[in-house]
């Protein structure tokens, strides 16, 4: 029943907005291109801006997906408002927690050093176990004295 149901109005439909194939394909192209960019920038040293650049690229990609693939650009404004609102709340959550967490890391570190004094990692990592015979697992002993 559905095969011949549509005709001229590709753009404005009763219930939703129909996206042209060209636009969808264009977005896919842009997304793939940005992925390539992020892989390249991710593997070069960028003077401490690596994370910022990676996040800018990821946010651009996310915006493309939201605006076009998820129809937000043509959808009810409230959906965009709500979605951005939720991202802002995540921002508040992250910002507070990150501001706070540095202060007591030293305490945690000190506590964990006490607690893990007898941990297996106090000794150097052993060499892999050879197949047939016992290995010499004191090979790294000197390293402790550094």
């Amino acid at each position, binding site marked *: 029943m559905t095969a011949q149901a549509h005709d001229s109005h590709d753009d404005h439909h009763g219930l939703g907005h129909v996206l042209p194939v060209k636009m969808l394909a264009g977005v896919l192209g842009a997304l793939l291109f940005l992925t390539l960019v992020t892989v390249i920038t991710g593997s070069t040293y960028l003077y401490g801006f690596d994370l910022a650049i990676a996040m800018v690229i990821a946010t651009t990609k996310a915006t493309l997906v939201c605006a076009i693939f998820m129809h937000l650009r043509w959808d009810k404004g*409230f959906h965009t408002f709500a979605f951005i609102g939720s991202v802002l*709340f995540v921002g508040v959550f992250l910002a*507070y*927690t990150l501001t*706070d*967490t540095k202060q007591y890391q030293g*305490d*945690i570190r000190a506590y*964990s050093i006490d607690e*893990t004094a007898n941990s297996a990692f106090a000794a150097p990592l052993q060499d892999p176990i050879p197949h047939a015979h016992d290995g010499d697992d004191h090979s790294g002993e000197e390293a402790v004295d550094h």
Partner: protein
Amino acid sequence: MVFLVIIPGIPAALGNFALPMMLGAKDVAYPKLNRFSYHLWLTGALFFVIALLTKGLDTGWTFYAPYSTSHSDSAVIWATMGAFILGFSSIFTGLNMLVTVHKMRPDGMTWFRMPLFIWAIYATAVIQILATPVIGIALLMLTIERALGVGIFDPALGGDPVLFEHIFWFYSHPAVYVMVLPAMGVVSELISNFSRKPIFGYRSIAFSSVAIAIFSFIVWGHHMFVSGQSDIVNVVFSALTFSVAVPSAIKVFNWVATLYKGSISLDTPMWYALAVIWLFGIGGLTGLWLGTLGTDIHLHDTYFVVAHFHFVMVGSAIFAFIGGIFYWWPKMFGVMYNECVAKLGCFLAFAGFNITFLPQFVAGSKGMPRRYFDYAPEFASYNYWSSIGAMVLGVGLSIALYSLVRSLMGERKVAPANPWGAVTLDWQCTSPPPPHNFDHAPPVEGPYDHELVRWKESLNGYEPVDPVDGDPNLARMGSAKTV
């Protein structure tokens, strides 16, 4: 109590029943999702029962790490999974309410013609949707940590226990408003209807609900003043905490202003509403002491906190819930309960509650810590009075329950469509309502225009006044109604 009773109490139980009717809608937007959320609630409850029957739970509802992840031997995973499932039940209720309010409003029901109960449920839904998933992930992380020893929260492995508190309270402070906002909505309805006066400051109450919902996301750190949280964050959280007091106070002042020169009829639901004003007043104001950095360090983890929390959660949320049940009972089952018995229950519960928890403020400020099974001898008299109060409270609540159950048995006293003279749409259909709530779409007017209904002796209830031909003076006769 928190996850199984207070959180779903008003939004899910009363909200699902009353909200579509008050809105003038045939049903909530997703009836099936609604039932699914009920089944989730049952499953979550079952998990908690299993936790109780196996090894019990000794972490409290806060599940603080690293005790819950690395040390406790009780049935933590059953309980966290139970709370996880209950969280999704709560999310789906909120989602349903949000969509219902947005999309199911009939013509004429504008945002500012919605009863304040709907505004409150709407604000609650926002919190449920945005905050509850965070407790879900917190509990999931805790479960995984406990099962796989990841060490995210365990300081012995270098993890960060305060991080758990951050993630936990990011939900659990807003959750306090999931519990208390709907209660405020119920009280707004009751105060206006039983004062037979339009609510004072309709818009400010409506906006204060939304403001509370938004503010509630930025104050969670006031639960963590002594956790090792950094000083700057402490100060910011303390200051922001006071900002939440503003919209809460707006509501209380507006309720009191509504009572002023109202023609008050003291039916059972109204007694509960008045009780809530008193109890929430005390609970809310003592909250300010706890939001102040200096006093909090003295009062932290004492019975003062216990008393404060109970005044807000039980005194406000549960009393409003019970008041709401008494209010909508005639609509739910089409029967009236015995007013005298119901009022007796309310008085005893109110008195018992105050006798139980007022002494705890004193004991707490004198240093009695919470979460110990015993107390020092100098706290004996406070505990003595608390015990007596608890028994009176128990008797009062039992009488209230009895009055409700009794109304369904034996000779029923049939309820009219509108026993209270309320103007919201839920009272314009029959009691109990037909399957799709309204046989004919009701005309939508302002929710608190009490001149639109008048007392009719033969119905033993109120009937709508035709706004065109009716004599507006007749509506004032409502105050002459005998109880």
